[in-house]
């Protein structure tokens, strides 16, 4: 049944519902609410100020109201001045930047960048960018955005340099410290890269650009927090914004619809909880198929473990763990329970046989060739799957621990783009960041099959790229409603290596679930001591 047929069925069903009359008891109790429910103090005070008591002379009442107003204004000014005193001092160039005037348009869309780069008309500006976006879709999208930005800002040239992720990681601090270095650099979230750069005073604070361009409305606070630090670089996840992300990613379950076509009954199952998901895996196993195509050789167990764990924990704990706040411990009942479930899945034979020696790319290829029903992976494999002929895939969020709860999704946003503090053209760089995260840019990325950091529409053509729309909608839902979790390997510098090695030992039963969380916690606590 396609969406239009489903809509038609729904409309008919709702139209067929006979109207219900509210029960008499409800009618009586609602009618009695004003008499039985006291208004809150604020509402009663509002009423008192609006209506003058008859026993108070009009002049006296006016004096009372004026006195209250003066007291209120005085308090507001005092509090406001204290808040202003507490604001970080911003570079003069940023503070003095006038708001851009949208004088140019691109495909009917005003480009606010023009005003910020207007000085290029008399003195040409070259903005140098350094990024690691070497993938086909994202790289060509960035190139196109650069051409458009140059066209909208005469006199501006974008000089783009690309490096591999490892090369960028190794050289980013030196690039930011170079007085002639790139103006705009992708800096990895977390203390190791962005935190270190903030501590060294190498990154420009983006607070005023965020205000100027309305970035606070573009992303939910939980997304901006991932690129925020205190001004001393020691507190992660809050404070000043230092970067904006162009792309997003989310971990979930890709499903090979070859199995649904073979067995429509099994295809109709839609798990509402982790327990129901395990029942589906069990049914697949009993039918003689591999429930989850999995290869552990490249560390993909982290994503499965993270998804299970994030369905079990409070997101506040997860934020604290990843941001290194409040001295949380990794040794909790939930981390143990998630480890136990992972081992149980292995024991029950839900994973590809011999998964220990299968790499990531091989696992994706096995899944694409219908050697298993599900692939538990992050959204970046979507374009690869959508390019497969003859088989369709869809993508589901990992269900919550209990049916009826809202699912959380492990994931995040791509490496944020930041501005070198000593860039000679910070305003033009700010305008560039605004442009590459604009609605137009997000749609262009979507059309290239890249998941943007916020979904505003668009999709790759042709539309048989089915999993893309699932990914985009689930990411949009999670990221705008505060239910996008984190990647566990962002929690501390050695997290990926430590988790990979110990998840392998856990699944091989070399260590117990309790021992697994203890060893991760020991590494995490050792890291926390370095922050003090």
């Amino acid at each position, binding site marked *: 049944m396609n*969406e239009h047929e489903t809509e038609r069925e729904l409309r008919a069903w709702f139209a*067929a519902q006979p109207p219900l009359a*509210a029960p008499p008891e*409800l009618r009586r109790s609602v009618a009695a609410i*004003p008499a039985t429910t006291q208004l809150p103090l604020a509402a009663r005070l509002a009423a008192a100020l609006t209506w003058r008591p008859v026993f108070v002379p009009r002049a006296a009442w006016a004096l009372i109201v004026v006195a209250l107003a003066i007291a209120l204004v005085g308090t507001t000014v005092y509090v406001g001045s204290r808040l202003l005193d507490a604001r970080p001092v911003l570079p003069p160039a940023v503070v003095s930047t006038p708001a851009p005037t949208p004088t140019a348009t691109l495909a009917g869309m005003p480009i606010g960048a023009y005003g910020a780069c207007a000085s290029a008309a008399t003195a040409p500006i070259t903005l140098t960018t350094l990024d690691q976006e070497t993938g086909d879709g994202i790289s060509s999208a960035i190139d196109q955005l650069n051409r458009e930005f140059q066209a909208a800002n005469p006199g501006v040239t974008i000089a783009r340099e690309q490096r591999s992720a490892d090369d960028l990681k190794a050289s980013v601090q030196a690039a930011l410290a170079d007085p002639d270095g790139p103006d705009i650099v992708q800096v990895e979230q977390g203390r190791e890269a962005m935190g270190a750069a903030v501590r060294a005073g190498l990154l420009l604070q983006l607070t005023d650009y965020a205000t100027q361009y309305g970035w606070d409305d573009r992303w939910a606070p939980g997304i901006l927090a991932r690129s925020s630090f205190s001004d001393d670089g020691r507190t992660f996840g809050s404070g000043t914004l230092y970067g904006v992300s162009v792309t997003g990613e989310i971990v979930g379950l890709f499903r090979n619809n070859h199995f649904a076509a073979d067995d429509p009954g099994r*295809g109709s199952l839609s798990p509402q909880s982790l327990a129901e998901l395990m029942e589906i895996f069990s049914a697949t196993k009993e039918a003689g198929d591999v429930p989850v195509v999995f290869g552990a050789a490249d560390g993909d167990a982290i994503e499965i473990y993270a998804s299970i764990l994030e369905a079990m924990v409070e997101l506040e704990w997860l934020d604290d763990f990843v941001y290194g706040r409040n001295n949380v411990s990794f040794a909790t009942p939930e981390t143990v329970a998630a480890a136990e479930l992972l081992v149980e899945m292995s024991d029950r034979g839900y994973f590809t046989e011999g998964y220990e020696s299968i790499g990531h790319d091989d696992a994706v290829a096995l899944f694409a060739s219908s050697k298993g029903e599900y692939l538990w992976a992050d959204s970046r494999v979507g374009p690869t799957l959508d390019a497969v002929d003859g088989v369709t895939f869809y993508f589901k969020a990992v269900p919550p621990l209990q049916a009826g709860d*809202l*699912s959380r999704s492990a994931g995040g946003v791509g490496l944020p783009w930041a501005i070198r503090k000593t860039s000679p053209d910070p305003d033009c760089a700010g305008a560039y960041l605004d442009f590459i995260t604009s609605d137009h840019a997000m749609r262009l990325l979507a059309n290239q099959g890249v998941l943007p950091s916020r979904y505003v529409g668009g999709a790759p053509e042709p539309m048989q790229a*089915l999993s893309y729309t699932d990914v985009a909608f689930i990411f949009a*839902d999670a990221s705008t409603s505060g239910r996008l979790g984190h990647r566990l390997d962002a929690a501390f510098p050695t997290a990926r290596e430590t988790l990979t090695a110990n998840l392998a030992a856990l699944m091989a039963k070399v260590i117990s679930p309790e021992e697994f969380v203890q060893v991760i916690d020991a590494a995490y606590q050792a890291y926390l001591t370095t922050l003090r």
Partner: protein
Amino acid sequence: MLRAHPIEGRQVDRATAFAALAEHHLDAGYNLAALILGNRDEAEDATHDAFVAAWRSWGSLRDPNRFEAWFDRILVNACRDRLRRARRHPVIDLSETLIDPAAPGDIAVSTAERDAIGRSLERLNPDQRIVVVLRFYRDLPVEEIAARVGVPAGTVKSRLHYALRELGVALGGRHPEVAR
């Protein structure tokens, strides 16, 4: 005749206005809650809670003509809270609990179809169910739903899309695009 104290008089004005609007919107609110929650008892409680909340925040309603949208938002929140507090999928059967067997009506769909749709709605998560009811029962445009639910229009669209996919699977027995 004794003149009412002005503050009390204001209360009386508020109470009169509230009572009139509540009476006018009571049935519509109760029906909306019943379809979201799938249970008449739960709907009765949620509707009552929502009207209490509406009375307590009466001062925030600037324009009485906007009462319906304003109250819908309160009611939807009350329903969502109930669904989440339950921390489990509500035990409901829309086909049996909502349709009054004694009520006359031109039922357009067969009982079997009705049961299937009712059961498929049960499988949606609370947020999906709310947008489906507002879209296909109330026939509200996405922007109006967004205002009532308190999320961006894009989020409403994504919830609707995903809900329709879920329902398509449940009603058709297979993922919608598999049939292409």
